[in-house]
């Protein structure tokens, strides 16, 4: 299917584009073979640019009837052994939880790009960080997923490539969680052929329709997600949870700055982290004892690294464009710690570096509750 000679990205070069385009080029460069999708703002341009490139690089696309179908057809593509992906947002992410719970149950390495929009319901098509809980823990299960939260177009490119490898290496559904701002904003980034950076793409393999004659060298595959009795289900879940916990330390990623002995540690993810990083570096430059901790993987969460950083901080400030979705994860991972947590929660609204600076200054000055 992708046996055309031309590589979509040769070597490495600097380009200027939007976030949705960056996702598309990363998927092309990663050797993604087929995308399934349903229109929803703000992720549409991923499909637009994918479809423009489909004939040039021997890829495929199917526009489905809804996100249920987009998710389930993506599962079908992966079962057929293809590096397959989809992208969605908001209400589409809600619908997609059904197929994603099947992918989680059956360890099907689908890759999903989420461009968060305002919620609940139709809300805005613009921006939020309100799909954290849904993306990390959606579905009727335990959230055995891997979620990368990006903060720039370069990261959108890097982590989209990485998501395919993580998914196929560990066999858990893998998400690139961005937002409407990152989807639409434009900035420069380096796009590259993974091979040019020594990144080897994890090979794919079919779960269904494998070569060979049944009974002569291969058995028929019988895949299922149904169990009739509690014990049988428990056995499968215990195995999957143990796998997840075993590989989590290899998967977790974070970024931090100035975490040793600080008066205030700012915790933020995604695009809000960008504002936080600017504010914190600025204030640190002025001699304030302030640092930041940014989880890159929201699921699994870099618990050990975070606890170590929080242990050396006098106060935490959690900032997010949601009403406590990151906060919940932070609190859960801090269980037992007595460090006070302050919050800057703006559901569905962006947070500027100035707002974070003001909040930090007030906290450091001992003001506010």
């Amino acid at each position, binding site marked *: 299917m992708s046996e055309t000679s031309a590589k979509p990205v040769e070597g490495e070069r600097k380009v200027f584009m939007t976030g949705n385009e960056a996702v598309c080029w990363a998927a092309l460069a990663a050797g993604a073979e087929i995308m399934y999708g349903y229109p929803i703002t703000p992720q549409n341009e991923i499909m637009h640019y994918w479809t423009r490139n489909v004939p040039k690089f021997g890829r495929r696309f199917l526009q489905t009837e809804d996100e249920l179908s987009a998710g389930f057809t993506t599962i079908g593509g992966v079962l057929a052994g293809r590096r397959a992906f989809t992208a969605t947002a908001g209400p589409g992410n809600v619908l997609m939880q059904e197929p994603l719970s099947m992918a989680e149950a059956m360890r099907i390495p689908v890759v999903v790009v989420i461009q968060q929009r305002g919620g609940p319901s139709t809300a805005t098509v613009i921006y939020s960080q309100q799909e954290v809980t849904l993306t990390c823990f959606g579905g009727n299960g335990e959230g055995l997923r891997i979620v990368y939260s990006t903060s720039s177009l370069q990261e959108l490119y890097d982590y989209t490539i990485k998501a395919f490898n993580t998914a196929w290496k560990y066999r858990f559904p893998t998400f690139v969680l961005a937002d409407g701002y990152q989807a639409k904003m434009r900035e420069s980034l380096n796009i590259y052929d993974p091979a040019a950076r020594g990144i080897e793409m994890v090979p794919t393999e079919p779960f269904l329709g494998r070569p060979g004659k049944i009974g002569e060298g291969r058995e028929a595959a019988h895949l299922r997600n149904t*169990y009739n009795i509690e014990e*049988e289900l428990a056995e499968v879940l215990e195995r999957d949870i143990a796998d997840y916990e075993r590989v989590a330390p290899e998967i977790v990623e974070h970024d931090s700055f100035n975490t040793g002995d600080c008066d205030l540690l700012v915790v933020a993810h995604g695009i809000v982290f960008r504002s936080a990083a600017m504010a914190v570096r600025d204030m640190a430059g002025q001699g304030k004892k302030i640092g930041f901790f940014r989880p890159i993987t929201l699921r699994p969460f870099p618990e050990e690294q975070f606890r170590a950083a929080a242990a050396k901080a006098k106060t935490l400030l959690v900032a997010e464009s949601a009403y406590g979705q990151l906060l919940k994860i932070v609190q859960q991972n801090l269980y037992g710690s007595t460090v006070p947590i302050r919050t800057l929660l703006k559901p569905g609204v962006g947070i500027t570096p100035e707002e974070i600076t003001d909040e930090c200054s007030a906290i450091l000055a001992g003001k506010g509750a």
Partner: protein
Amino acid sequence: MSSAQHPPRVVEAYIGEYASEKSEIAVNRALELVRLGKQVTLVDLDLVEPCYTLRPLKKELERAGMTVLAWETAELIGLGETGNVLKPSTRFCLLRPGDVIMDIGYGISGARVLNLVENAWEDPDLKIYAVINIARPMTATVDQIVDHVRDMGRVDGLINNSHLGDETDVAIVDQGARTVAAASRILGIPVVTTVVAESLAASFGKNDLYGHPVRVIRRYMPRAFW
């Protein structure tokens, strides 16, 4: 009377409303017959919520000396949703020697479930008993009981199983006996028994206030899941 080739035996089917304790009464009846030294087959014909009624008790009942026709847990692997599947051997349960006690689930078809059992309507010993608890809102009044029983097709006897679980007292059992007896007169179907739990047995003699024989049961179902 049964013919010489077909010695008389106990063949009882228990039907009734959801959670009317059909299974409890069927299990107790089967154990009672075992204690009388009889060969007994207990059959799970609950097609709306199968597997959950007799399954967890199966081994214990078999150890007591009866045959239980119900799905084995291990046989269910891969059945999925609820496993609403008729176990083939249950279809031929009446061809077995000895006494047969059938536990039939609730549902709109009532006694018509017996269409699925080979020879059911020809069996000379078959008795179909409707279990009634007046504490359940759909069978609380005489009129409701009459309509309910008429809906279920053939019914040969009524069982007063009026109770309130752990809060059962003598009054609810007596009120049930009175109400079921009134329905019995309209339907022309006898009241076979009034059922009381072991804990209340001392408050009753051999018959209830209206002369129906009292059957004391022990509750096994709390050990089942539903």
